[in-house]
């Protein structure tokens, strides 16, 4: 060997090439334990079976609870007109309850539609972190062909470009929400385009979410109520609404730092809201643990909706267009943790709804259309509604494209409207379990 080759050998033998150890480890495990794939498939099958069982069980349980008292004829006196139309009631009939809204908060702040390619996305070197900071979004940018490029710079200063396809399409296979305060099996299709500025630096994402539900069943169970008992006296404690088709389109626009504007079009409803959030991130590189605290709130101001009754206890089947203005301020604090393939969030939230009663139109339980400004109807003397919820949400990443989610939650609601005297009345306690699987096309 000559001097040339000697130096060549010394330089190259000491050189550490860029490679993802997690990817290598996964490959090793796949080769060593090929049976795990089979086990994983069985696990998925089992999870799907549990899901199906829960859906079926909910229907069976609800049927036994409700009996024949789902329908109330027009002539039945249910409650005085000033004790009707609690916010949750309105939201439930429109298939947009607080749980759904809370779900949206989770989606936008947690980025659950994006599954990371590797568990450890934090660069291990100072230089790598510096490179990441050149771009918003972990060193990625878009080239002229529309492909995502990831720029890496090695120790010698050579820039290496890794190309990958743009992430285009997120398809949630099955998103089922089995809960005692809402039940809606849903198929979600989400399209998340990434937006880049002229320098190909990735901006805070504009998101478009298209949600499609071929079958949407909503059921609410009232587990405990005080003054609301009169309202529900002819019921066994549940309401059922069946919608044959539900589609919604939601657009999120980041306006300034941590402030986003949402505008949404639901089936028969237009929604606008603002949200802002604060994130404090504490990153731990050891064992790929990432923790952060999320505080966010949404201000909801306007709802225009159509209520279509296909099956409800009014025994009325006409379409009525309704609207009302209100101010809704939910605040949630969440603790998020990411560990290898598992990430979970614990979240506690409070939710206040303040209704403006001078504008709006709605429908009474006996099927009458009334204007909220009509003082003769004397609707809703008190108009404050409060919620407290506690939720745990977990995502397990099966592979780069599949994600399993599970999330139990608890909610207690208090409302001033149902109270005959001053103060709040507990409307209901409820428990929920949300499960789902998500597949991402890339």
């Amino acid at each position, binding site marked *: 060997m*000559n*001097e*040339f080759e000697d130096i*060549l050998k010394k330089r*190259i033998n000491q*050189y550490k090439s860029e490679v993802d*150890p997690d990817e*290598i480890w996964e490959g090793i495990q796949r080769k060593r334990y090929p049976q795990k794939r089979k086990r994983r498939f069985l696990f998925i099958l089992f999870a799907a079976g549990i899901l199906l069982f829960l859906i079926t069980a909910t229907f069976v349980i609800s049927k036994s609870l409700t009996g024949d008292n789902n329908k109330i004829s027009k002539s039945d006196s249910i409650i005085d007109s000033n004790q009707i139309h609690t916010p949750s009631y309105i939201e439930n009939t429109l298939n947009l309850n607080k749980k759904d809204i809370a779900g949206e908060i989770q989606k936008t702040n947690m980025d659950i539609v994006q599954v990371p390619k590797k568990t450890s996305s934090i660069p291990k070197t100072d230089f790598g972190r510096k490179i990441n900071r050149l771009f918003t979004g972990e060193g990625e940018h878009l080239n002229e062909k529309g492909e995502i490029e990831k720029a890496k710079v090695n120790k*010698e200063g050579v820039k290496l470009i890794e190309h990958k396809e743009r992430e285009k399409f997120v398809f949630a296979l099955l998103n089922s929400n089995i809960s005692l305060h809402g039940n809606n099996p849903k198929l979600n299709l989400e399209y998340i385009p990434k937006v880049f500025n002229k320098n190909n630096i990735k901006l805070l994402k504009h998101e478009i979410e298209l949600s499609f539900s071929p079958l949407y069943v909503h059921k609410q169970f009232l587990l405990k109520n005080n003054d609301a008992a009169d309202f529900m006296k002819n019921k066994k404690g549940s309401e059922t609404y069946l919608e044959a088709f539900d589609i919604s389109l939601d657009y999120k626009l980041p306006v300034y730092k941590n402030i986003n504007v949402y505008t949404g079009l639901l089936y028969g409803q237009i929604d606008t809201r603002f949200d802002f959030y604060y994130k404090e991130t504490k990153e731990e590189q050891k064992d790929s643990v990432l923790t952060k605290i999320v505080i966010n709130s949404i201000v909801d101001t306007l709802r225009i909706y159509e209520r279509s009754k296909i099956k409800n206890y009014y025994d009325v089947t006409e379409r009525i267009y309704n609207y009302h203005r209100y101010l809704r301020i939910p605040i949630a604090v969440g603790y998020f943790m990411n560990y290898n393939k598992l990430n979970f969030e614990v979240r506690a939230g409070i939710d206040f709804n303040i209704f403006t009663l001078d504008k709006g139109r709605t429908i009474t339980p006996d099927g009458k259309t009334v204007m909220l400004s009509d003082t003769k109807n004397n609707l809703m003397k008190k108009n404050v509604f409060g919620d407290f919820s506690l939720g745990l949400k977990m995502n397990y990443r099966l592979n780069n494209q599949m994600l399993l989610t599970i999330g139990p939650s608890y909610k207690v609601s208090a409302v001033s409207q149902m109270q005959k005297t001053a103060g709040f009345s507990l409307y209901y306690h409820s428990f929920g379990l949300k499960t789902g699987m998500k597949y991402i096309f890339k």
Partner: protein
Amino acid sequence: MQIEKIILGCKSGDERSQRELVNQYSGLLFTLCRRYAKDINDAKDILQDGFIEIFKSIKSYDPAKGGLENWMKQIVARTAIRRYRKMYMVRETYDKKVDPYMRYESSIIDKMEIEKLLEIIMTLPFKYRQIFNLYVFEEYSHKEISEMLGINESSSRSRLSRARQMLLEKIKYLYPGFKISNINF
């Protein structure tokens, strides 16, 4: 985790230790794999197979006989060779035109970027590259190489000469100031 603990853990089959070994040595061993592989994906595959062999053989590893790094490199290199063994079974005559005693200006190597050097090596035709790797980096003799690959010694020598010649041509193309002078030994 300290290396001694990692070794002990790997010997007892502890996956966490094995994972740590992968974390610490992937980069270094991947460079070796890149020298042998056809492309990056192949290199990753070789690295994975190499680690599996390492985990199987680590019980027999004795620190007194040598460093862990060199021991692992030998295993990974052998894994790479086994993978492409069939490709070496091609007869080749010794090219007498190649002068094995050329002396190269070594200082250029100090200035070149390592990634560029690796790229140049990876552009060498496969059968020449393997011989070059085994002789220069793994320091096997021609006799050992011929036994490993199932070729004769003269083929090993001729391929090495050819690899050197091609390497020089590529470097000269990229760095026109690079000088070659003949010297008699």
